[in-house]
C-alpha cells in the first residue's frame, strides 16, 4: 500500500485555480520532493493532505485513510511543518520544544536523539525567549519542534528557508535517518542540493504536475528553470581603489553576549561584497550598525564617508536597504510604493514618474504598475524591493538575504539586477545562504561566532582552504564554530 495517494485533486479559491487535476503516489518510507516556484500550489497540496483543506475535486489518502472522511485518523499519525512555522515568541526555546513534544504525545527526552544534531546548536539558548532569536535560529528550533516526534508520514513545506548550508546538510542527514526507521517524508525546497537528496520529485507549476521522476531526470528536463546558465561578470572592472565602508574593531554586545565581536574590514567603491556566515553569526546585527539602525557598543566605522555612531542620519541619505523580511507596503500598489520611497529621498514628481517607467520597463512590470504589492508572487516582490532600494541611486545598497525562498530562475534574474546596479557604480553589500551566489561576489567575508574568520575573493578562499567550491569553504569554516550562535 502506498503511504500517500492523490487522485485527480483540484482546488480553487474563487477564480484562482491553485491545484488542477493533480495525481501522484508516494511509497512507504520514500523521501518525496514536491518542488516548484512560489505560488505553484505546493502549500495547498500540503494542507489538503493534512486535512486542513478539503479538496475541490478528486480524492486523496494518507496511510490508507481518506483526507475528507477520516480526518482524526490522519491527524493522529502525520507530522506537518508549515512554510511559515511559527513558534510562540514569548515562550523560551525549551518551553516551545517541550510544548510541541507534549502536543504530539511524546517527550523531549524520547525524541532527543533524532534532533540532537541541530538542537545541540541552540541548546545553550534554551532559556532565551524565542522572540529574541535571529531568523535562522528560529527556523532551526522550528525544525526541532517538527521532528521531535516520529509520525508515520511527515510533511515539510520549505523547512530550510533562511537556514545556513551547514545546518541544512545536518537537517537532511536527520531526514535520511528518519526514513531508515520507516517514516515517509514529503518535502519541498528551493535548494537544488536538497532536491538531489530526494528519491523522487514532482515538479508542480501553476497547479499542474509537469513531471515526476528522479531528481536528475527532473532537473535535466527542466534545466532552464532549475539550472539556469551562470552569469558572466567581468570582475573588478568598475571597482575603484576607494573605501566606501571602513570598519574597525566594531563590537555590539547585548549584556555579556557579544553578537558582533571586534570585526574590521573595508569595502571598495563599486564592489559586490558578500557577507556570509552561519545563522546567528552576527551578520544582521553588523548590518544594522552599518545602516544606522543600531548603535555600536564600541569600535568605529564609516559608511559613505560618515561616522556610523554620530552621523547615521547622513548615512541613511546615501544608502539603500532591503531587509530579510519583505518590507514594502503590501496595501499600496507598485507605483505608489516607488513614489513613496522616491519622495522620502527627496526626489521630485517629474523625476519619480520618469524613473518609475524606466524601472518598471527594466523589470518588465509595466503591466502591473497598478497592482497591489500584496498580490504579487514572492520572487516579483523581491525584485521590486531591490529596485526600490536603489531607486534613489544610493552609493551603497545593503541586501539582507534578498533571495530567501526564491526559485533558481528568479534568483538568476535577481542577480542580473545586482550586476546591473554594480555596473552603474553602486556598491553592493549582500548576505546570502546560497553558496552559488557567493561565487558571484567580487569579494566575500565569512563570519563565525561574531568574528570575521576569512575574507578575500572566492578563488583566493578556495585556494587557501584547499576546498573545491564555496559550499565546502563555508562548511569547513563554520564547523569550527565554538558558540553555535545567535
Amino acid at each position, binding site marked *: 500500500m502506498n503511504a500517500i495517494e492523490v487522485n485527480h485533486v483540484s482546488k480553487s479559491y474563487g477564480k484562482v485555480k491553485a491545484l488542477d487535476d493533480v495525481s501522484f503516489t508516494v511509497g512507504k518510507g520514500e523521501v518525496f520532493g514536491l518542488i516548484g516556484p512560489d505560488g505553484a500550489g505546493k502549500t495547498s497540496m500540503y494542507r489538503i493532505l493534512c486535512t*486542513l483543506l478539503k479538496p475541490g475535486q478528486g480524492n486523496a489518502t494518507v496511510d490508507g485513510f481518506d483526507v475528507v472522511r477520516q480526518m482524526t485518523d490522519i491527524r493522529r499519525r502525520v507530522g506537518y511543518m*508549515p512554510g511559515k*512555522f511559527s513558534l510562540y515568541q514569548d515562550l523560551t526555546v525549551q518551553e516551545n520544544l517541550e*510544548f510541541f513534544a507534549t502536543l*504530539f*504525545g511524546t517527550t523531549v527526552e524520547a525524541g532527543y536523539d533524532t534532533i540532537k544534531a541541530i538542537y545541540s546548536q541552540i541548546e545553550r539558548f534554551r532559556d532565551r525567549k524565542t522572540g529574541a532569536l535571529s531568523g535562522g535560529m528560529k527556523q532551526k528550533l522550528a525544525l526541532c519542534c517538527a521532528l521531535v516526534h516520529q509520525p508515520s508520514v511527515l510533511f515539510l513545506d520549505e523547512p530550510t528557508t533562511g537556514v545556513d548550508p551547514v545546518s541544512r546538510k545536518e537537517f537532511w542527514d536527520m531526514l535520511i535517518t528518519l526514513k531508515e526507521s520507516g517514516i515517509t517524508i514529503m518535502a519541498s525546497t528551493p535548494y537544488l542540493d536538497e532536491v538531489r537528496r530526494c528519491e523522487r520529485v514532482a515538479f508542480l507549476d501553476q497547479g499542474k504536475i509537469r513531471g515526476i521522476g528522479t531528481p536528475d531526470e527532473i532537473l535535466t528536463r527542466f534545466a532552464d528553470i532549475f539550472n539556469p546558465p551562470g552569469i558572466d561578470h567581468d570582475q573588478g572592472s568598475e571597482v575603484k581603489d576607494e573605501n566606501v565602508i571602513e570598519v574597525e574593531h566594531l563590537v555590539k554586545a547585548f549584556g555579556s553576549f557579544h553578537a558582533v565581536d571586534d570585526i574590521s574590514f573595508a569595502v571598495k567603491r563599486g564592489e559586490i561584497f558578500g557577507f556570509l556566515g552561519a545563522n546567528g553569526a552576527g551578520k544582521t546585527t553588523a548590518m544594522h550598525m552599518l545602516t544606522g539602525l543600531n548603535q555600536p557598543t564600541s569600535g568605529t566605522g564609516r559608511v559613505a564617508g560618515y561616522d556610523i555612531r554620530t552621523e547615521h542620519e547622513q548615512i541613511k541619505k546615501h544608502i539603500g536597504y532591503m531587509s530579510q523580511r519583505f518590507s514594502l507596503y503590501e496595501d499600496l500598489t507598485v507605483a505608489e510604493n516607488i513614489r513613496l520611497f522616491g519622495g522620502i529621498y527627496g526626489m521630485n514628481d517629474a523625476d519619480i514618474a520618469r524613473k518609475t517607467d524606466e524601472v518598471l520597463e527594466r523589470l518588465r512590470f509595466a503591466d502591473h504598475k497598478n497592482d497591489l504589492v500584496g498580490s504579487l508572487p514572492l520572487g516579483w516582490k523581491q525584485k521590486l524591493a531591490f529596485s526600490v532600494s536603489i531607486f534613489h541611486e544610493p552609493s551603497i545598497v545593503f541586501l539582507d538575504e534578498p533571495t530567501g525562498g526564491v526559485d533558481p530562475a528568479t534568483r538568476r534574474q535577481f542577480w542580473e539586477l545586482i550586476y546591473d546596479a554594480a555596473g552603474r557604480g553602486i556598491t553592493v553589500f549582500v548576505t546570502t545562504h546560497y553558496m552559488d551566489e557567493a561565487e558571484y561576489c567580487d569579494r566575500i567575508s565569512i563570519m563565525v561566532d561574531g568574528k570575521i574568520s576569512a575574507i578575500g575573493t572566492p578563488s583566493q578562499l578556495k585556494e587557501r582552504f584547499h576546498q573545491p567550491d564555496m559550499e565546502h569553504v563555508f562548511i569547513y569554516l563554520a564547523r569550527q564554530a565554538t558558540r553555535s550562535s545567535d
Partner: protein
Amino acid sequence: MKQFISFIIKESKHIVRDKRTMLILFGMPIVLMLIFGFAITTDVRNVRTVVVTSSLDHLTQRAVERLAASEYFTITASVATPQDAERLIRGQKADLAIVFSPDFASKRQGMQFIVDGADPNMAQQWTNYATAVIANADASLVNSKMLYNPQMRSAYNFVPAIMGMLLMLVCAMMTSISIVREKEKGTMEVLLVSPVKPLMIIVAKAIPYLVLAFAILTTILLMGRYVLGVPLQGSIVWIYVVSTIYILLALSLGLLISNIATSQLMALLLSAMVLLVPIVMLSGMLFPVESMPPVLQWISAIVPPRYYIQAMRKLMIMGVGIGEVLREVVILTAMTVLLLAVSLLKFKTRLE
C-alpha cells in the same frame, strides 16, 4: 491529559509574560473602583451661588445666611441685577443665582432661581435643595429612609457594573484575540494537525482566562467590601454561581468572535464595537435602561450584561434571595447554552 495540562501551562505563560497587559487587567478594576467609589459623585456640593438683591431686608438676609450655612451652597457674589448674575453664569463663574424681589419680606412677591440648565439633573437637584434650604421645610414632616444605600454612594450602583464590564472584557476579548493570534501566526495549523482534539484546544485555551476572570471577580468583591465599604448583602455562593454562568457566556462569545475574525485587528475591533460599546451604553451600567426609548430598550434586552448587572445589584446590594433573580439567571443560562452551542458548532476544524 498530559497534553491538556501542558496546553494550559503554555496558555498561562502567554498571559503572565505580557506584563503590561497583566498590569492593566488588575490595575483597571482597582482604579475603576477607586474612581467610582471616591472620585465621582453626583452629590450637590460647592454650588457657586450668586445672590441678586437690591435691599437686604431681614427675611432675605435670613435666607442668604441659611444658604451660606448649608454644606451645599457657596455664596460667591452678590450683584444688583439679574443681568449681572446671568453674565456670571455664562462666564462659568456661577451655577445658580437667587433673585429676591425688593419686598420679599412683604410676602407679596417671591423669588426666582436662575439656574445653569446645561446639566438637567444637576439643575433640578440644585433648585430642589435650594428650595428646601430657604423654605426651611419642616423636616419632621417626612422621615426618609434610603434603602440599601443610606449614604447614596454611587459605588453601590457601579460595583456590579464594573464586574459586568471587566469579566466580559477579559473573557470575550482576550480569548478571541488569543485564538485569532494563533491563526494569524500559523501555529493553529500545527495544533489542528496534531493528535489533540480541537475541542480540547478550545477548552484548554479557555481555562486560564476562566481563572483570571475569577481572580478579577474576587479582587473586585474584596475591594468593594473592604475599601469602598459596599456591603455584600446576599449569599456569596450565589454571587459566584451567577458570575460563573456569566463568565461561561462571555467565553463562548469570545469563541464566536474568534470564528468570525481573521486577524487580530478585526478581533479587537469586533470585540470593541460589538461588545464594549453596547455593554457600556445599553446595559444600564451608566445610563438607566428605563429612560431609553422603547426601541433601544428592546435592543438592550439581548445585551447579556444587562441581566448580569441587574442580578448582581439585587444579590449584592439589595441582598435578596436567589428566588428574586430567577428571571435574570434563567435568561443568562439560556443565552449561555445558545451561544456555546453555536460557537462550538461553528468552530472550524479545518482552515476553510
